[in-house]
């Protein structure tokens, strides 16, 4: 975390840098978090109710299709969190944004959890639908690679003690790993896979019935907001820890 961002005077950049101040982030995020958490909980409850109790079963897959309401949003977030981390990596390397590496470090365990949930719920959906828990097809394998990249990033943060060096190393690794994102997205188009092609974010619009699409989109939004809440909490923890590190260092060296 660089404590002193370069001063900027132009409009959008000024706002970008103004919100980059760790103290200001702590202030705004503390006020925003309870509201965000309440909206997330309400949306999650509504989405789960609609997905489990109201939405119809699929005419081919039957009831197992209800796993979609957690599997698909987890998959969206697995990729979405990594995309956000890629922007944060650029923020660290190119713009030297003071909170970019804090954001990247906070997001990695959340992204890894969403990816692991995506793989596990997909396996539980695959068994009754395809007759197998796992297949080494392009979509599943590339998502597994994403999980391994997340683990690598978390391990790299822990392996390097000096935060600035760790941030740069992780940023480079994150940018290299971003190559996997289009592979995941287009794997179902580029190769013959057991996994079905995209049915929501596709040219020509969604192919899912509106009665199933509505709870799916609600759950997607709830997952995104949940990520926002967790990201804020983990960034707050990281900022406080870095303050404590500096204080401990000052006390150890006898500074006032």
């Amino acid at each position: 975390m660089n404590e002193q961002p370069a001063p900027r005077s132009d409009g959008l950049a000024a706002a970008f840098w103004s919100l980059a101040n760790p103290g200001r982030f702590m202030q705004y995020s503390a006020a925003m978090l309870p509201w965000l958490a309440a909206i997330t909980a309400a949306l999650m409850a509504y989405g789960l109710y609609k997905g489990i109790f109201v939405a119809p079963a699929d005419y081919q897959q039957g009831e197992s299709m209800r796993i979609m309401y957690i599997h698909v949003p987890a998959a969206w977030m697995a990729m979405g969190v990594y995309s956000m981390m890629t922007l944060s990596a650029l923020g660290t390397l190119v713009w030297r944004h003071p909170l970019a590496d804090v954001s990247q470090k906070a997001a990695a365990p959340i992204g890894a959890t969403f990816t692991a949930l995506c793989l596990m719920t997909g396996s539980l959906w695959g068994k009754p639908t395809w007759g197998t828990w796992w297949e080494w097809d392009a979509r599943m394998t590339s998502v597994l690679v994403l999980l391994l990249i997340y683990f690598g990033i978390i391990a790299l943060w822990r392996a390097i003690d000096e935060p600035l060096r760790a941030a740069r190393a992780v940023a480079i690794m994150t940018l290299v790993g971003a190559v996997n994102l289009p592979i995941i997205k287009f794997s179902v188009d580029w190769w013959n896979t057991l996994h079905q092609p995209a049915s929501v974010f596709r040219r020509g619009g969604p192919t899912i019935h509106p009665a199933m699409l509505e709870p799916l989109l609600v759950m997607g939004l709830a997952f995104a907001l949940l990520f926002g809440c967790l990201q804020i909490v983990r960034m707050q923890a990281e900022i406080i820890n870095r303050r404590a590190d500096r204080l401990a260092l000052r006390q150890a060296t006898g500074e006032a």
Partner: protein
Amino acid sequence: MPDFGPQAGYILAAYGLFALGLGVLIAASLAARAAARRRLARLEAEGERR
């Protein structure tokens, strides 16, 4: 509870994993922030005593 038929086990296991995974993640995140706050407060108190 709706009748999920023969696929009930898979559906309940998936939602159970979802609840467990997110529950652990939320708890770990809140615990990490609480631990950081305690650490900073302890260091600040030690600094004032010197």
